[in-house]
């Protein structure tokens, strides 16, 4: 048809959950029918490594809803272009890059939560853990699953939260003990919740939203937000630095923090970077922002490499089942 | 009388196909028997029945009068050499030869010694440690022979042991096998489809055709007095001349070998006028193909080169063929009305 030539096409890398993307994009398609959005969805680790691998010849125009800590890694390699999307002022300071033209802008925060399978817990006669401290209880030996911080954003924010809350020494100490109870470290952040949902492992350290949606599908899952407070990260957007920056890329970034978009985000997340009037979704704490710990993204990004090295050395593979 | 080995009315069928039909014969101790016949006539099947590798539908195999039709191969005391040698490729010549020697019966040293002795018998003592792949075809064949003899069998069965070899090696091994057989004195049955081989090696030949024994006898008997046109034709070349010598005679009733046809430049009593169709040089002789001038019959004549050179003939020439009367073979008795002296020249 006639306006086929005017159609613009952008490639968007995202780590948002598959089941969210379609709903979110509906309003974008309605507003901008002439822009084709080419979605590349993968886990945070994969999206990050794809970005980095393509450093010489970037494929993505925009990164959407990907962990801020990961975007900081790409930023350190000089891969991101500053851009202040329309309505940037509505975004509160902790949720965006501090530069004049921010290199990244958050859309929502997500936080650690435990998905606990109530049926299995009852079968085994176990108490439901309420805090990080509780997880160390020997009754949970080999029953806890947690995402591997090296590949999962959720995993990293959880570990980074331990560090920032407890201090490094303490945190390693804590994790040494936690490791005793871990049955498996998973590649992605949602898998622990899914495994809990199948009863494969009754307790999964995951992110809050995951467990809550599974409970809606009928799985016997209760989501616990730890008493000590949850580690959190932002799903953030960024413009990829490349020779030809398409106007449509900026249009997309503008839309991505618009009120319509925020409304959709708030369906799934308790905390959006631009506050909406939506009530907190069911299952989340009344006052979600209080659940969040103090989080220094720059510190996390800077130390990411060393923490992961150390973590991998200590735990990855060591907990292999005895032969 | 108790024969060394006797085969009695053996019949063997595969599905609806009859491979052997009522086969009977017997063998004396120490004899060398050649089993000869065209491909598919049942030679191998018969040998396998003797060895116990195949079971007959009917009939029996007697050894020194004892029925052993039902014994498994291991209990029969037969040594076998197959056409393909069937050497174990992963064992050395010596190990192959020692394969059948029971470790309970012979110590390791004894087995080794026996293997070497048998290899010496076939002049391969210095090849003891070679693998079959490192031996020539003829050497492999001799190892197979040594292996068969190592068990001190009472009978040796050879299934076309030479057919896979070069002509020269074949002739050399013929002599070797014959020498060995006489030396060891072992009763031997050898299958072949090479008439020359059978003629030159056998004490007695058994000619088979179509699952049946056609004729058994010494090589000379069989060559000079074949009992049937089939045998005459199968052993050596033959001219069937029945229809040329008797009016309305059956072609296959009377036969003569090419070396018993002589050629004369001029007609004489009882010669046939013929035209030379072609000449085939064979070194020590010429095979001349003659065509009767009056009819379309072909006659082969063998003329030795010396004779030929004294009296050369050329293609197209008319010559007169004479059949040596005393050599003519009559399959159904000499017919009354006609002798070879008065050939019918119609």
């Amino acid at each position, binding site marked *: 048809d006639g306006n086929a030539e005017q159609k613009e096409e952008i490639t968007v890398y995202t780590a948002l959950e598959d089941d969210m993307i379609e709903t979110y994009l509906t309003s974008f398609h309605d507003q901008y029918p002439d822009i084709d959005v080419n*979605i590349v*969805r993968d886990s945070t680790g994969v999206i990050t490594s794809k970005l980095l691998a*393509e450093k010489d010849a970037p494929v993505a125009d925009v990164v959407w809803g990907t962990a801020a800590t990961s975007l900081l890694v790409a930023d350190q390699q000089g891969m991101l272009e500053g851009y202040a999307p329309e309505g940037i002022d509505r975004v509160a300071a902790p949720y965006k890059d501090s530069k004049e033209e921010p290199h990244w802008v958050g859309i929502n925060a997500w936080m650690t939560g435990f998905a606990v399978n109530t049926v299995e817990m009852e079968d085994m006669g176990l108490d439901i853990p309420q805090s990080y401290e509780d997880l160390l209880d020997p009754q949970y030996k080999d029953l806890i699953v947690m995402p591997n911080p090296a590949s999962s954003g959720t995993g990293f924010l959880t570990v980074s939260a331990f560090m920032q809350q407890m201090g490094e020494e303490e945190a390693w100490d804590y994790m040494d003990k936690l490791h005793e109870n871990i049955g498996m470290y998973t590649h992605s952040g949602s898998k622990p919740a899914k495994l809990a949902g199948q009863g494969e492992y009754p307790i999964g350290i995951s992110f809050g939203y995951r467990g809550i949606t599974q409970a809606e599908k009928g799985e016997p899952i209760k989501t616990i937000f730890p008493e000590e407070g949850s580690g959190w990260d932002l799903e953030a957007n960024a413009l990829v630095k490349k020779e030809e920056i398409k106007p449509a890329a900026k249009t997309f970034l503008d839309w991505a923090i618009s009120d319509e978009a925020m409304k959709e985000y708030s369906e799934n997340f308790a905390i959006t970077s631009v506050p909406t009037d939506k009530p907190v979704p069911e299952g989340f704490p009344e006052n979600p922002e209080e659940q969040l710990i103090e989080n220094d993204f720059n510190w996390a990004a800077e130390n990411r490499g060393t923490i992961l090295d150390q973590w991998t050395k200590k735990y990855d593979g060591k907990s292999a089942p005895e032969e | 009388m108790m024969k060394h080995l006797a085969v009695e009315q053996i019949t063997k069928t595969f599905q609806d196909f009859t491979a052997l039909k009522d086969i009977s014969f017997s063998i004396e101790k120490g004899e060398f028997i050649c089993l000869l016949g065209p491909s598919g006539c049942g030679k191998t099947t018969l040998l396998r029945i003797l060895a116990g590798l195949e079971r007959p539908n009917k009939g029996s195999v007697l050894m020194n009068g004892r029925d052993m039709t039902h014994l498994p191969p291991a209990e029969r005391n037969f040594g076998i050499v197959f056409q393909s040698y069937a050497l174990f490729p992963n064992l050395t010549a010596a190990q192959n030869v020692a394969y059948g020697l029971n470790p309970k019966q012979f110590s390791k040293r004894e087995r080794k010694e026996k293997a070497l002795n048998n290899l010496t018998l076939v002049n391969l003592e210095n090849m003891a440690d070679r693998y079959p792949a490192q031996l020539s075809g003829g050497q492999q064949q001799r190892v197979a022979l040594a292996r068969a003899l190592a068990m001190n069998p009472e009978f040796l069965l050879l299934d076309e042991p030479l057919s896979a070899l070069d002509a020269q090696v074949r002739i050399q091994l013929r002599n070797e096998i014959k020498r060995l057989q006489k030396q060891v004195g072992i009763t031997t049955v050898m299958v072949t489809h090479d008439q020359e081989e059978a003629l030159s090696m056998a004490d007695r030949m058994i000619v088979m055709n179509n699952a049946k024994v056609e004729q058994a006898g010494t090589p000379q008997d069989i060559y000079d007095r074949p009992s049937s046109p089939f045998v005459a034709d199968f052993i050596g070349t033959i001219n069937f001349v029945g229809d040329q010598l008797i009016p309305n005679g059956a072609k296959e009733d009377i036969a003569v070998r090419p070396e018993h046809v002589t050629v004369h430049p001029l007609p004489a009593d009882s010669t046939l006028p013929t035209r030379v169709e072609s000449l085939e040089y064979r070194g020590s002789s010429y095979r001349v193909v003659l065509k009767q001038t009056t009819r379309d019959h072909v006659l082969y004549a063998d003329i030795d080169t010396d004779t030929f050179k004294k009296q050369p003939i050329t293609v197209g020439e008319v010559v007169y063929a004479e059949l040596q009367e005393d050599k003519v073979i009559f399959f159904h008795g000499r017919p009354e009305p006609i002798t070879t002296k008065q050939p019918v020249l119609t």
Partner: protein
Amino acid sequence: MISALQSIFTRQPVVRQSLNKDAHIQRILLLLMLIGLGTAIILPVIELLKRAMQNTQGEYIGFENFITYFSSPSLFQSAIHTLSVASVTMILSVSAAFLFAYAVERTEMKGKTFFTYIALLPLFAPTMMYGIALVYLLGNNGVFTTGFFGLFEQWFGWQASDFDIYGFKGIVLSEVIFTFPQAFLILKVSLSTADQRLYEAADTMGAGTWKKLFTVTLPSIKYGLVSAFFVSFTLSFTDFGAPKVIGGQYNVLATDVYKQVIGQQNFSMGATVGIILTIPAVIAFIVDQRIQRRQSGISSKATPYQTPVNALRDRLFTTYCTIITIGILILFLAITAAAFVKVWPYDFSLTLRHFGFGSVAGDGLQPFYNSLIVSAVTAVIGTAVIFIGAYLIEKSRHLKWVRNVSYFLSILPIALPGLVIGLAFIFFFNQSAISLPFTSMEVANPLQWLYGTMIILVLANIIHFYSVSFITATTSLKKQDAEYEAISETMKVPFYKTFTRVTVPLSSPAILEMMMYLFVNSMTTISAVVFLYSSEWKLASIAIVNMNDAGDIAPAAAMSLLIIVTNILVRVIYEALVTSIKKRKVGI
């Protein structure tokens, strides 16, 4: 091989023949093939080697990465893990396959065809599937682990037990199932060509069953055994799918590569581990080449094996085969059940919702369609390219050195694990400039546009499965009279006419086999493509890994089931075509 390479450099002068059109076309095709193979195999592998000797900043550091690797305990441990998995797999898989192949080839057991097809069934599934199925059966909440969800306990007082399936046991079980059909096929072929006369010779000399086994049977399948051992070792050494799904914390080299590259963006270390991953395959490759050369000296005048009658033996083997069959079928049943059950193990009502994939892989059935397209294109183009390549190498009499080098390049990929091909491809095709080997010159990479397209997936698949298809083609071509080309040439018939009129028709069963092989393997493969796919060309096998990563195991099972059904269908079509060809053509 080596002597063939040597001969390239020691050529005597030969009288030149004037070249006609035929000769020109053949020479051009030969050179094109050499350039193609060189670009698709040698240049990427060189790039990989280069990366392994660089640090993350791209500076040359020699073997430092290897030293780091072996001195870091957790990484070094992966190597030990991989070795243990591969060794145990090799022994279990070859033993099981030997008995199975023996049953099919050397007994009078009933249902041999059925058992053969069952043994081949695992070929049709991606390795992830065995992992997933094992989780359903033997996982912490698996059917057997819980004694049929407590039913056993109710009925027989049988306690649920802990199989500890995540890790060593799970990986080994998956790999055994994965390598079983491959070992089975090799051993079946070896066992099918026994020399009956050797058995008869042994019989007449009074050898018993065991003596015959050790002096006749085993020696005669020696090469088959060695190659079955190698194949199961290298396949399980380099497999990525099963450890990914069921490995738990039991790290192996293949998942290390993935983690280094995808998780930690440490490409140099990824390349380093990739090279380590290649070692056993390279050893196997060299040994195999040697053995083959030695083997060619042995000529066999074998007569076909006749199975002696033995009812007890037949019964024992039938029992054995039935047990294996049940084992294999249970896996497929579990996958089927998982794909159709709503919430395993809490709600067993049936549903088709897992086949929607909408809420999980994001693209619905698109990855499956993508896989179909990529596999079909791989099958068609791959078969054409490989067959023509094999034809030129085998039948042309021009440019001997090109044919020798191309032959080597054609069988080389068998030593390259999929992960290594994938890595080498990203390194090579994703760089903007190629530095020419042995020089310091750089040229703009004219192939960079391939990166992220479907073409690179097809190319990776073709290279990944090149050697086996090439050997199929070569074997079929070798069976054709060597003089067809000579005869045609003296009759002034252009070679392409003989190629289309004689060579291709005579090779049609082999061509179909190559197509089927390429299709089925492209449907199931993960290792090469996991680094190369783009969002538009996400494949079914990748969707399975992603869904499994996200914990969406039921849709992952559903996707596996789609792949299996497709592959079985393709196989059925293949069998039908081959049968009809054999029936129709008198000459073939």
